[in-house]
């Protein structure tokens, strides 16, 4: 019979913990949250030798069990609570071969909790390059554990980890450092008061700064026969503990770990000098950003065009195959258009996360964090604020959650309030379609105007976040600042499997997270666009036919027919067809085109008098000064639920009643304003992009901000301030550019 055991993967950040987790669990993993809090919980299943099945829990990265953030206190809480369902039977401590000394600090702490622990030394492939040699057997003896030398990059050593986990009962639970040595008299008293408790566990409960286990702590404080030392005295004892641990680690490594520094010097130091240089560092980062945005536009245009055409064909196919009726219309014009509005952006989102993931995996992102810290300090932001701001390019929700690592509450609040300005992936579809419509295709110094515009929008978002932080910093009067510390991991070639996981995970969360909302809104919009209560809606056909009879077709329809005829004539002449044949074809073509144009005019009239049309018309005066019509107004309004709904909304609105196989882009490009000019022109396009750059249009983010600040005051402030600011900027841009 198979046996289940709990395994906790613990380690310092950047030790390759996630890679070990991925290789142990493969695809048998799930990502969720710890109950009641917003820290990510990654767990998976791994089959081990001798029929043992392990439930693997990938704990948040931590440098020690002396906690400073919620992520870290969660690790400690689990390791101290034997009643927790995830309490580990065995702890697998992941370390990095180059930073073993620092990594062993955490290992010895876990060992002292008397949890069977295995030491995994990762990145073994770098040993020879870095001049490192180790005596593993001697190290095992010194640390009283079993060691697995692993290279996740080369997929070496994973089987050894599995064997050691399966054999966990043979591991020693003896501590590395005797806690009594910290203060013999104090620990003696502690032991006497709580004879059945583990000393080091008690010590951790007493010394933690965070209030993560109020009941346990209270239990100790309530025992009158035992008095806890003052905070200062406890701090001194903690320092003593640190010294004792490093003494033990130094003694262990002195005999078992050697580095030939002559062999190790060079590359990393010189690269760091350039990449974090005051001038070149920023220049390189700027060039990398440019390359990314250029690539997003160039590479993804082919799959995007393909997807767009396929959805147009699918819509057409449904209309031609299924029996005519409202359900067929819903499928073709609502559901297919809605899904198309989501799927079309998969290539760009995948490319964006591919690049972000490559930068993170290579170790460059930490240099960027360091570099940007220098730039941001004058604006009153903590260095740690940069991580949420960079995460914000993916989604503001995890970014707002990531602010929990910022200890200072005011700094954290400022970061929460400004993070939604950074360009999240939901804004990307809006920008992409608008840029493609209104920004010309030319290039400057080999870089396309479109890519430059996209990059500018990202920089505007980031700039606005910093500017707002500066203002908030003055208003909120921050008195203290937290210490900025960032680890510079070694440069390494990105592990393709990890990159692939990230891209897949982020794309999936966009498609299935935002996608469901977009689809639901598309369905509701289709219904509101296909139904109406007014007489005008009910008698649309009659009214439009009468009007055409009296006044003829509209200018838009006349242009539509003429453009199609001109295009046909040009192609036919190029193919060498005789003018007589062309003339005959044009005659029969004109009849068809006129019928289509009449149908379009009826559909357009119906839409204008449908429920959504009525609502849009009522809202139009508000958005008219920004250069938008009632259709864009509806898209803006629905976007307040989630920004990514914009394109789907327009796709649905423009699809209602349309019989033609047209892509979203061509439909939007064909829209004319009341004066007969394209509706999506440079002025309205820029105005719209700026509105989306600054407006707070994400209900989920507002909900998270409410949860993180425990008040409606801040999310409402954010909503009001950002929306008013966005409106004013968009208004200004349109009035200047028109």
């Amino acid at each position, binding site marked *: 019979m198979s046996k289940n055991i709990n395994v906790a993967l613990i380690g310092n950040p950047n030790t390759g913990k996630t890679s070990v987790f991925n290789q142990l669990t493969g695809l048998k993993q799930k990502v969720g949250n710890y109950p*009641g809090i917003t820290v990510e919980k990654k767990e998976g299943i791994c089959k081990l030798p001798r029929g043992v099945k392990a439930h693997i829990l990938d704990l948040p990265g931590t440098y020690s069990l002396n906690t*400073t953030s*919620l992520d870290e*206190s969660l690790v400690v809480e689990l390791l101290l609570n034997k009643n927790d369902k995830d309490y580990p039977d065995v702890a697998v401590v992941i370390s990095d071969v180059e930073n073993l000394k620092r990594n062993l600090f955490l290992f010895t702490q876990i060992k002292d909790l008397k949890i069977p622990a295995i030491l995994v030394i990762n990145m073994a492939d770098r040993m020879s390059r870095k001049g490192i040699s180790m005596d593993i057997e001697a190290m095992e003896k010194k640390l009283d554990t079993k060691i697995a030398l692993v290279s996740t990059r080369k997929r070496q050593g994973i089987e050894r980890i599995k064997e050691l986990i399966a054999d966990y009962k043979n591991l020693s639970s003896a501590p590395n450092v005797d806690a009594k040595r910290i203060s013999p008299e104090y620990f003696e008293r502690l032991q006497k008061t709580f004879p059945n408790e583990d000393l080091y566990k008690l010590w951790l409960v007493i010394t933690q700064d965070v209030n993560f286990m109020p009941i346990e702590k209270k239990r100790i404080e309530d025992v009158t026969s035992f008095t806890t030392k003052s905070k200062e005295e406890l701090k001194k004892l903690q320092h003593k503990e640190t010294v004792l641990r490093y003494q033990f680690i130094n003694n262990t490594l002195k005999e078992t770990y050697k580095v030939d520094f002559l062999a190790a010097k060079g590359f990393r130091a010189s690269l760091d000098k350039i990449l974090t240089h005051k001038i070149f560092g920023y220049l390189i980062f700027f060039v990398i950003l440019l390359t990314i945005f250029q690539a997003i536009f160039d590479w993804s245009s082919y799959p995007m065009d393909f997807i767009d055409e396929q959805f147009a064909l699918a819509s057409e196919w449904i209309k031609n195959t299924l*029996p005519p009726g409202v359900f067929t219309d819903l499928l073709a014009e609502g559901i297919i258009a809605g899904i198309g509005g989501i799927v079309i952006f998969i290539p760009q989102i995948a490319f964006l996360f591919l690049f972000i993931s490559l930068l993170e995996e290579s170790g460059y992102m930490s240099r960027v964090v360091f570099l940007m810290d220098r730039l941001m300090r004058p604006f009153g932001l903590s260095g740690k604020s940069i991580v949420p701001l960079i995460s914000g390019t993916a989604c503001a929700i995890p970014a707002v959650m990531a602010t929990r690592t910022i200890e200072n509450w005011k700094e954290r609040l400022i970061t929460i309030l400004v993070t939604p300005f950074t360009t999240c992936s939901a804004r990307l579809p809006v920008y992409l379609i608008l840029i493609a419509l209104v920004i010309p295709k030319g290039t400057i110094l080999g870089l396309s105007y479109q890519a430059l515009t996209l990059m500018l929008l990202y920089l505007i978002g980031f700039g606005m976040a910093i500017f707002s932080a500066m203002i908030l910093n003055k208003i909120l009067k921050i008195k203290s600042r937290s210490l900025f510390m960032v680890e510079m991991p070694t440069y390494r070639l990105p592990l393709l499997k990890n990159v692939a996981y990230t891209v897949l995970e982020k794309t999936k969360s966009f498609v299935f997270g935002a996608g469901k*909302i977009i689809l639901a809104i598309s369905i509701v919009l289709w*219904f509101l666009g296909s139904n109406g209560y007014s007489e005008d809606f009910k008698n649309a056909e009659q009214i439009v036919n009468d009007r055409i009879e009296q006044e003829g077709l509209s200018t838009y329809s006349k242009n539509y027919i003429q453009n199609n005829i001109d295009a046909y004539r040009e192609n036919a002449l190029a193919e060498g067809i005789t003018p007589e044949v062309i003339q005959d074809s044009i005659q029969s073509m004109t009849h068809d085109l006129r019928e289509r144009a009449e149908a379009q005019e009826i559909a357009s009239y119906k839409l204008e008098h449908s429920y959504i049309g009525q609502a849009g018309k009522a809202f139009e005066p508000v958005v008219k000064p920004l250069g938008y019509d009632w259709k864009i107004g509806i898209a803006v309004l629905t976007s307040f639920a989630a920004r990514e709904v914009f394109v789907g909304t327009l796709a649905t609105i423009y699809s209602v009643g349309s019989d033609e196989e047209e892509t979203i882009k061509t439909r939007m490009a064909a829209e004319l304003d009341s004066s007969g000019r394209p509706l999506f022109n440079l002025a309205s396009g820029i105005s719209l992009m700026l509105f989306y750059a600054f407006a707070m249009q994400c*209900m989920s983010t507002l909900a998270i901000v409410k949860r*993180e600040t425990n008040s409606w005051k801040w999310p409402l402030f954010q909503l009001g301030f950002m929306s008013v600011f966005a409106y004013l900027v968009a208004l200004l841009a349109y009035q200047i550019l028109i």
Partner: protein
Amino acid sequence: METVQHILVYLILGMAVAYLVYKFLLPKSLIHGSKKNSKGCGQDNCGCS
């Protein structure tokens, strides 16, 4: 046939509306129960505890 199509449309519309209400309008405490989070981030005034 037309009636069936109408029924299907209203069914899907109902599902879409219900999903949006669930996602945006229904208070989270109603969905997950009003379990109080006992974990804090270490700040006295951050409101997360």
